[in-house]
């Protein structure tokens, strides 16, 4: 019985330490050096290379639990594009992604107006919202073939044919740049349908777990750059010159990861010590 207690207590002790390690950087900012990886650099360079006044597609899958990890990059991307006078078309292929588009737009407008006093963002001039589109890959293929046919009305019920911003936009050829904000499972169909078929430039915002998937497409150049998780967001905040919340998340992540490394080392030293002493564990 005593053995059990020991085990439980050690477990709780670890949880408490972890809680502190995670929370402190969230409450008090600290400075940890931040290496910039090639994916974020590619992302930044691709966005900077977008010609002024380009029409940009912005598909959002981010929702729920992944939102805090990726929101910073998602919003700052929209801000940076607006600063280049780009016209953004927001849409989603997952119904859960729709409410989060509201948040991206609202906050991005705030950041934009704070950075560019006196300038405003207007609907149908700087962006339009198309809401949820069903059908995933088949839906996306159809979307790029005949956008106004597939989506007769925008999110607010206005006919897409009467939107000024979309006057000359109806196919993948009219959208030279695409932001693909995923969260969980990778969807290479975006690459297949848009990049391979219409040859536009594509950047992705994804969780860090998808590194192995994204690296394949990055090496072939099908994806010009990617924000990978909160670390990628923090790097983009730095590159785009817009400080934000991702830095504190990534600092917390760095410290907690360090804790995992220490836990691995300590656990194994204990184990080896036990083995050397001849005990079981």
């Amino acid at each position, binding site marked *: 019985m005593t053995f059990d207690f020991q085990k439980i207590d050690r477990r709780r002790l670890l949880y408490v330490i972890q809680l502190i390690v*995670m929370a402190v950087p969230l409450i008090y900012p600290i400075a940890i050096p931040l290496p910039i990886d090639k994916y974020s650099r590619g992302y930044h360079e691709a966005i900077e290379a977008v010609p002024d006044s380009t029409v940009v597609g912005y598909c959002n899958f981010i929702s729920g639990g*992944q939102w805090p990890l990726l929101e910073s990059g998602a919003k700052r991307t929209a801000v940076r594009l607006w600063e280049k006078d780009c016209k953004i078309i927001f849409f989603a292929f997952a119904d859960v992604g729709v409410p989060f588009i509201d948040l991206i737009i609202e906050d991005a407008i705030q950041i934009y107006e704070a950075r560019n006093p006196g300038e405003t963002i207007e609907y149908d001039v700087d962006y339009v919202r198309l809401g949820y589109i069903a059908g995933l890959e088949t839906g996306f293929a159809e979307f790029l073939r005949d956008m106004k046919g597939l989506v007769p009305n925008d999110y607010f019920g206005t006919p897409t044919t009467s939107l000024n911003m979309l006057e000359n936009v109806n196919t993948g050829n009219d959208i030279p740049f695409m932001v693909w904000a995923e969260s969980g499972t990778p969807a290479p169909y975006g690459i297949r349908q848009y990049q391979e078929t219409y040859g536009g430039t594509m950047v992705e915002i994804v*969780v860090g777990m998808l590194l192995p998937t994204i690296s394949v497409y990055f090496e072939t150049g099908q994806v010009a750059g990617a924000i990978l*998780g909160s670390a990628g967001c923090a790097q983009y905040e730095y590159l785009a010159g817009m400080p934000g919340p991702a830095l504190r*998340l990534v600092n*917390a*992540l760095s410290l907690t*990861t360090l804790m*995992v490394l220490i836990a691995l080392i300590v656990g194994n030293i204990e184990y080896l010590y036990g083995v050397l002493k001849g005990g079981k564990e």
Partner: protein
Amino acid sequence: MDLAFTGQLVGAFLMICVFSLLYKENPLSRVAEHALIGVAAGYTFVTNFWFIINTGVNGVFNGNPQYIIALVLGALLFTNLSKRWSWLSRYGLALVTGTGVALAISRVVLTDIFNQMVVVAEPFLSLSSPVEIFNSVLMLAITVSVLSYFLFTTKARPKQMGPINKFGRYAMMVSFGVAYGTTSTYRINMAIGRLDALLNPSIRSYSYVMTAVVLAAVIYWDLRLRKK
């Protein structure tokens, strides 16, 4: 207090209740758990109900009478609640499974078999540096040995192949190690994201108070349980 702020507080309270699982399972974590299952089941019910109405039932009345077949097959699934008639639900399941399997067969051969074979073989077209030669040969060796690890009949896998299979297993462990690293990072990141939501300046002070209350209650229950 407006609806949005109340929502934030309720959400924060539930989050703290779930986090209390880290100490021990307790009445508050059970409240959160059951609230979650209840709302989730309700949400599932409602979204699918409206999907059936909008796509199926409306479809029948608006030029797609064939959808009546789908509605009948779907409704037959409910025969599963009875012992005697449960076999009727097999028709709906046959439709669902047949479609799933067929889509898989079509997709998998090209992407997961042929394309993978090609990427192993084609680096050998242009080997320029010793590093490239090493990498390509290593990748070939690993892919083949892992594949041979998954041979199960002794006819296809004689004993002499032992060392190759072992090498394959070791190589897989490298992959699992990498997966362990990236997946762990992601999980930790999720935890940090939740904590950040709790520490959001607009509700931070409430979070502190609620955490203290929940923790006190949980410890109290735990002590009482131990006394018993």
